[in-house]
């Protein structure tokens, strides 16, 4: 089958969102492309800037679900397809990082662990909670170093640091730091080798 070229090669430089107008606090480097009409559907960040992506990166079907205080930094030559980035605080991703289909990265617990605080949170989030503040919710930055490969259906939880060159097998649930060039698999993810 003949593959279709982009209609206008110039449309891919400088950085562009092909399916909408980019929020003002999102900065894309030269030749970086975001595809997918849902990319900023859940984008609420007020940070300046909120998202910085380097050059020559491809974000195909990625969801940038950022809370009001969230900040995401992504390096050059990254390739993410249909990844879900759930960020309340900070997500720092290096260069040459690949993230597979339906992978989720979250830097937050979304709700408090304490049952009493969770009731407060349920009320604050409800239609009756107008103006009520949500209780504090645990969040810790996620840091992914250069050259990391993350497979489809992977989940990466808050506070995780993934070392350079690590290989995260499909479906892994990563709850702890991964050493550089480690290959991890499972739930919870365990080191099964090196690359």
């Amino acid at each position, binding site marked *: 089958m003949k593959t279709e*070229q982009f209609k206008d090669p110039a449309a891919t430089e400088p950085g562009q969102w092909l399916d909408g107008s980019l929020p003002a606090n999102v900065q894309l480097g030269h*030749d970086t492309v975001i595809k997918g009409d849902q990319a900023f559907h859940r984008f609420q960040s007020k940070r300046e800037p909120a998202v910085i992506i380097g050059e020559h990166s*491809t974000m195909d079907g990625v969801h940038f679900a950022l809370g009001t205080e969230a900040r995401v930094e992504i390096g050059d030559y990254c390739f993410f397809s249909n990844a879900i980035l759930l960020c309340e605080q900070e997500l720092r991703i290096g260069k040459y990082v*690949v993230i597979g289909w339906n992978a989720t990265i979250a830097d937050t617990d979304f709700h408090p662990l304490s049952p009493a605080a969770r009731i407060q949170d349920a009320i604050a989030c409800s239609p009756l909670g107008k103006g009520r503040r949500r209780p504090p919710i645990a969040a810790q930055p996620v840091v992914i170093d250069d050259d990391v490969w993350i497979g*489809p259906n992977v989940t990466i939880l808050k506070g995780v640091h993934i070392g350079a060159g690590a290989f995260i*097998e499909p*479906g*892994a649930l990563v709850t702890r730091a991964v050493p550089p060039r480690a290959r991890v698999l499972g*739930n919870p993810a365990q080191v099964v080798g090196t*690359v």
Partner: protein
Amino acid sequence: MSLAALNRRLPWDWYQGSIPANVELEGETHLETTYSFLHYRSEETPGVRLGNGSTVYLGTMFDIGPRGQVRIGQYALVHGAWIICDAAVEIGDYALISWNVVLMDSYRAARKPAARRRQLEAVPGSPRRRLEAAAAARPIRIGRNVWIGFDCCVLPGVTIGEGSVVGARSVVAEDVPAYTLVAGNPARRIRAIANDEIPEAI
């Protein structure tokens, strides 16, 4: 009405696409949408073959490379799988594949970071900015009458034997024998499934 008469379009389709010429539909099949072929680029004949009585629902994506071939057996039900195929993915007759399942015969990515960098540097100049395969593919085979629960991953080179069941959210990294229940991430054997628990096929 025949597919040719419909110009390889589906009358109920919400997506303005058509079924690629090298996709074969045997007898009566149900394909929900041609959106499933968004990432399809197989040049093989057939690139995808759907058996008589098989069903492919929305959410299924045929992410098939130029040399990939997918065969879906008779009465098989694919309820929304992401099929990553650069060589061969076979789904047997009567197999049930749940939603958000990943069936992959290739990692596509090179294992070594240096090789992966060269692969990524080729993306911006490639047609449709795809990450083209830089790793050898190893065919996967899902046997007849296998049931795979939702959110599972089946990794390259894996064969799942006839009549076996894979619990939801499992990651299958090794072969599964016939008539065996496996679950977990990575998937482990839970128990055998007695042959007589399997009803006679139609």
